[in-house]
């Protein structure tokens, strides 16, 4: 069970002396990485969530909301982000000066229950179980999430990053349930439509 003492005490020198090759390979790897990073400077693609924010604006243009979703003609169009906000200030920059369904846009960041003023609800990947938020939403809310399981949980649109491009899937059953009309242009760009 407890073997008797056997060997000399450890020493850093002792263990590292046997690894000149290790050091060589690491040196090579570490020397290559900065070189390649530097060579990459010129064309820089935009961050994923900047593009997703631009998509959200576009969705408002290709989806028709039922009039009942708005209490009156003056009430704003609510864009809501549930949980951790992955967009930072970019969402505000994208929607600044824009209208949605001919209404001014109000952005809400929400925790817990979804307020009535949400027409577009983004549920980020930080929300592990979107099912609870999705269940019991009133009609007239376009729910947008991330990754395929979101569609199965009853969401309308799910972003999917594929080959470094932002694509999306649409769940038409869920859209109908939410009384939303999705334009054929949006459907044709979607990766899959269920």
């Amino acid at each position: 069970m407890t073997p008797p003492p056997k060997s000399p005490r450890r020493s850093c020198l002792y263990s590292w002396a046997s690894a000149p090759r290790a050091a060589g390979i690491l040196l090579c790897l570490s020397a290559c990485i900065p070189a390649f990073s530097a060579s990459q400077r010129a064309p820089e693609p935009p961050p994923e969530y900047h593009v997703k924010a631009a998509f959200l604006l576009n969705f408002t243009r290709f989806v028709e909301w039922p009039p009942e979703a708005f209490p009156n003609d003056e009430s704003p169009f609510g864009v809501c982000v549930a949980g951790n906000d992955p967009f930072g200030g970019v969402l505000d920059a994208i929607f600044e000066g824009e209208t949605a369904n001919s209404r001014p846009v109000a952005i809400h960041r929400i925790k817990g229950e979804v307020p009535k003023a949400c027409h577009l609800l983004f549920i980020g990947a930080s929300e592990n179980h979107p099912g609870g938020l999705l269940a019991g939403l009133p009609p007239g809310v376009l729910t947008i999430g991330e990754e395929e399981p979101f569609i199965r949980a009853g969401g309308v649109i799910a972003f999917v990053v594929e080959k470094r491009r932002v694509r999306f899937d649409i769940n038409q059953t869920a859209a109908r349930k939410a009384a939303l009309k999705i334009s054929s242009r949006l459907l044709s760009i979607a990766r899959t439509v269920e």
Partner: protein
Amino acid sequence: MRLSLHPARRRACALWMLPILLLMPARGVEPGADPQGDQPSPAALKTLSIEQLAQLEVTTVAKERRPAFRTPAAVFVITREDIRRSGINNLPNLLRLAPGVEVAQIDSVKWAIGIRGFQGRLSRAVLVLIDGRTVYTPLFAGVYWEVQDTLIEDIERIEVVRGPGGTVWGSNAVNGVINIITRNAKDTRGALITAGGGNVEQGTLKWRYGAGSDKLAFRVFGKGYTRGPQFHSDGRNFDDSRRGHLGFRLDWDTSERDAVTLQGDAYGMIAGQNLNISTFSPPAFSRLDANAYLYGQNLLGGWRRTLRSGSSIEVRAFFDRTDRQDLNFREVRNTYDVDLVYRIPTARHIFTWGGGARVSPARFFQVVETVNFIPHEQTYNLFSGFLEDEIALIPDRLAFTVGAKLEHNSFSGFEIQPSGQLAWTPNERNTIWAAITRAVRTPSRVEDGFSFSALAEPSIPLYLRLVGDGEFTPEQFLGTELGYRRYFARSGFISVATFYNWHDDLLSVESRPFMAETSPPPPRLVLPLLLRNGVQARTGGAEVATLWDLRPWWRVSGSYSSLLLNARNKPFSNDASTVRQLEGDTPIHKVVAVSSFTLPGNGEIDLFFRHVSAVPNQRVPAYSTGDARFGWRLTPRLELSIVGRNLLQPYHFEYGGNPGPLVGIRRAVFGRLTWSE
């Protein structure tokens, strides 16, 4: 040192490096990327049509790892893609990918694994869960790694938490938690068959069939392998093994808010072992090469309801039976366990509370007279409750988590384990976190009613006798951690964790005066060694992990882990071996580097390098070795992969644990054909 200058070895290294050098692209050439000019501003993005947006290439932070971004703990996630591209076929070797986890193979069947020190055959004080089912055995306070398995292809991810997961996870997670999560049955619909063979993994056949709808889906799977021995300089090739495993999982969304899971496994394994066995009657000592027979079955049911308020409630219950027929003892253990977790997110708080009960009756069968547990039948009980509150001091920026777990176990009574963690996220790219935790490692059967005698001197005869007499009290732990994570716009991240821990009342072996014994005959002299709490230790260290997507087709990652452990006897202790063991059983340095290429024409090349410094107490010198995987998708459904492991030398040593000379871990090559739909 044998590793340093042998010309054949150098050649092997050069060969291994060749693909890296060949694949180094010329500067500025970036196949597959569209020229885009400077990064567009949000205002510019608004002007693009939706069709253009869909074509735009973006930078992503390795999203699969993102949920751990704000976590105030040293978490590393081994993703499904990591697992697939490693080509690794068993759970213990997969853990080599995680920083701070020391994995050493003892022979073809056994591993010694540790997190932040305390490495050993049974990974003392590391909690291992497979879909929430704990596989920690209260017999020896550890995990029998050789029997832990599942269909590797259906693992969603492995979360490795270094350091005390004490608060939420319960006792015996002092040094870390390893959480193996398999895929939802909805994601594994379709058939999969994989067959392969090689020089060590001689033959493997795995299959899975899954079917169902988005509401109700199931899978069944089977797995069998035969594995050959590693290198034995004395020619005793005892460590071959065979195993068969059947399992299923069913996932059913009974309503929009309810999800039910039912899953189970059954396995049988024949594992070759080599053991010194002492007896009181002649011949008093023998060295045995024979097979251990290891069986297990388990069934787990889970139910999760998500409430409209965003709260969720989860109940899980499992039954686990293990039958371990080792060469010198047999134990049959049934574990019944129920757990409940309730999570209530509000605007400023996330409350989590829960509780659990575990009843684990076990029966010991004595096989040799020198190994005994008294009484033979004993039931281990564990009752626990916990409460945790994550408080958003500044929403989305500064979070403070405080929690405590109260536990009652049948060996040592009540234990309370509080913790506090702070996470500061100044922006979406940086997190700085700190944690302080108290944790305990509670006694196990070996410390409460165990007796093990080994012949030390045949001429007298003199026996050493290890005695667990129930006087052992829980091992105490106080840990402090500080960490930093940063995500880069250019698809990379770096994560640094440092720790300094105080361990007190660690297990020690205290010798008592010799005594003469006449029953059972023949007469002999016995040196009792009592299991007590006579050792203290301090551990400190750092782990750095990084990952870069340099090109859409090229990812590099790597990690460095260091550990310093200083132990000393407490004043009353006369233990002569534990301090040296603790200090010399875990390597100080570990380096892992991975380079993964996706080639045109559906090919993949993955190269792995690791360096592990010496393990003096096991007489294991430092070693460096490399693995490589070549994968080709021949058709959309058929994949061929060739995996080479430990390629830089014919064999190397990783850990002791068998009588006789160290077992060399061989260079291994394995080919595999996978058909999936």
